[in-house]
């Protein structure tokens, strides 16, 4: 890996002082922290278009990228922005785009092309409330779009969902790593609260290792020409291309699932929630436990691949699951698919940019518990605490390629 005169952006922590300074906690706005994390992750080029509530991300990049001698373009549209990213990524550069819901809809076309042609890229969606132009309040109404939708064709992209600004910063480095490892676009989704709020964060950054790509377009000098494309008019060739993609997706599903468990060791109930909804859920769980309801949190960090195996295992030990989202109920469909009727799955959500209060969530939990108790009183239940689940998840964490790295960084699990 040559840097060809590129300015050093991540000073090596040569002294304890430097290290301490770097680890100092500072107050940062989510959008800006995400942008800075991308910069430290080695983002070579950023392409964007203004849209609330992610505009500060674009503005941060507009100031920082030229400072570092890197590429920033404010494109004429989200369509152009992501296609610029496609071109830059095709040459092996580490690229990123960001937008918000309606802009992501426009970017969907190129997402499909990039998935089809195996072009890595990181895309950040600071979600608005929809549909249409909707509103700018915090929302998780793009779960379907992120995990099942956007562009056309049989493809998937890994979707990372942080629940704090600090986690978003950590996940940015992971996102670039995943994108390059699997030659795929990777999405990071957050709601307007995570984008707009300020939180104290540790300035700990990670730059994923640079690799040599045998597919990157660098000019056919001393080698055959390379082609990055998604078209194949021969059905058999195209099916093979699709089978390769599906193989890749199975591999991602096998190796890259991430989630967080909290207070599930003795739990009768679980709240499944991600992002800001998971933070509300934590407050609700504390309140519910004070009222004697044993409840814990299951928080998917990868929305795709969804931690369905882990949730399925957990559901065997639960009396019920409450899914909380800032939407009409989108992830709850994946929860139900994973649970396969092993326990009741209820839903509570708010839309339009509103966030449920912890009290609301406790209310929904009590309603679920009441329903479960009426159907089958607790004394008639064969209940085993979900201890086995923990062991399984630990095993899986060990098998993950970044487990070591995570442990070093004081991992989340």
């Amino acid at each position, binding site marked *: 890996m040559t840097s060809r005169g590129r300015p050093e952006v991540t000073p090596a922590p040569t002294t304890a002082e430097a290290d301490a300074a770097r680890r100092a906690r500072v107050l940062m706005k989510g959008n800006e922290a995400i942008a800075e994390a991308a910069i430290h992750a080695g983002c070579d080029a950023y392409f964007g278009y203004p849209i609330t509530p992610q505009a500060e991300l674009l503005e941060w990049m507009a100031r920082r990228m030229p400072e570092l*001698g890197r590429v920033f373009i404010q494109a004429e549209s989200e369509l152009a922005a992501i296609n610029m990213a496609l071109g830059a990524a095709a040459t092996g550069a580490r690229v990123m785009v960001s937008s918000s819901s309606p802009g992501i809809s426009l970017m969907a076309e190129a997402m499909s092309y990039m998935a089809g042609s195996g072009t890595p890229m990181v895309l950040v969606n600071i979600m608005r409330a929809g549909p249409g132009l909707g509103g700018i309040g915090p929302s998780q109404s793009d779960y379907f779009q992120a995990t099942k939708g956007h562009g056309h064709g049989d493809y998937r992209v890994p979707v990372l969902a942080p629940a704090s600004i600090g986690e978003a910063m950590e996940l940015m480095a992971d996102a670039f790593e995943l994108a390059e490892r699997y030659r795929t676009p990777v999405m990071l989704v957050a709601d307007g609260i995570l984008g707009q709020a300020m939180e104290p964060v540790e300035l700990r950054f990670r730059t994923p290792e640079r690799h040599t790509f045998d597919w990157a377009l660098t000019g056919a000098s001393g080698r055959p020409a390379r082609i990055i494309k998604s078209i194949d008019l021969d059905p058999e060739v195209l099916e093979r291309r699709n089978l390769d993609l599906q193989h890749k997706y199975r591999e991602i599903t096998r190796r890259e699932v991430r989630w967080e468990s909290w207070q599930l060791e003795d739990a009768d109930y679980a709240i499944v929630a991600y992002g800001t909804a998971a933070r509300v859920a934590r407050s609700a769980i504390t309140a519910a436990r004070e009222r004697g309801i044993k409840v814990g949190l299951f928080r998917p960090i990868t929305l795709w691949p969804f931690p369905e195996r882990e949730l399925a295992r957990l559901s065997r030990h639960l009396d019920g699951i409450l899914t909380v989202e800032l939407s009409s109920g989108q992830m709850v469909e994946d929860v139900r698919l994973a649970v396969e009727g092993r326990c009741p799955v209820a839903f509570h959500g708010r839309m339009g940019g509103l966030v449920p209060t912890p009290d609301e969530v406790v209310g929904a939990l009590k309603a679920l518990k009441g329903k479960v108790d009426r159907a089958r009183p607790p004394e008639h239940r064969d209940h085993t605490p979900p201890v086995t689940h923990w062991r399984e998840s630990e095993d899986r964490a060990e098998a993950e390629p970044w487990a070591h790295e995570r442990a070093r960084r004081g991992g989340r699990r």
Partner: protein
Amino acid sequence: MTLHTPEPGDAARPAAAARLVYAKPDVLRDRSTHYCPGCGHGVVHRLLAEVLTELDLPSHTIAVAPVGCAVFAYDYLEVDFVEAPHGRAPAVATGIRRVRPEAFVLTYQGDGDLAAIGTAEIVHAAARGERITAIFVNNGIYGMTGGQMAPTTLLGQRTTSSPNGRDAALMGYPIRITEMLAQLPGVTYAARGTIADVASIGKLKAMIKRACQVQIEGGGFALVEALSNCPVGWGMTPQQSIEHLKGPVVEAYPLGVIVDRGATVAPTLDLGCPAPAHPEA
């Protein structure tokens, strides 16, 4: 390789002194094309291959293939290629340009791609003065999808989606997009040629060469529109289509260099940005 062109008096020379007067540029792959009989794309491909070779560009060219008949351009030109979504080639080329300042960046688009769905991308790439060379093949029709009306379709022209002929009242007027783009100060070079006859092909080649040289010299956006034919889409024999091209098409789209601002336009690219780190693959 060196290409020789016949010189006056060549024919009079003795056979023993025979020399190579015509050869396939190495950058042109040795295969037959998918283009319909009589189609002009092959001529434009050939000219492009000759120019790239003459300017010693193939080894550092990164080209962008469009959606449309030329989607398979990478099957015929042996240079690094990326496929762009429909109309987005100028944006894709912009991304390449900015992270690969040393590359020769080329786009190849048709009129449906460039003048309809990709209007925003071509206008803004030109407005930014992106240091890219755009080859624009205008045959006034959507060939790949079966001959539908394009924004460049002539008034009165019958297509599968204007079966009674293009009516300005309903379908608007043909767009002279090269003249539109030439208004922008970011455009260093804009010209229109045609493949209609041998003399025109020679001029077209000179235009393509100039558009490539502009990029090498550090100028801004360079565009060459090549008026071409589509015998199948136009419902004509190849010969009829050439006559049509020379007549009403050239009349609607005048030939010549529309603007050549030399390399005086400051390219947006050379802002002192060093190349980002790349794998030396």
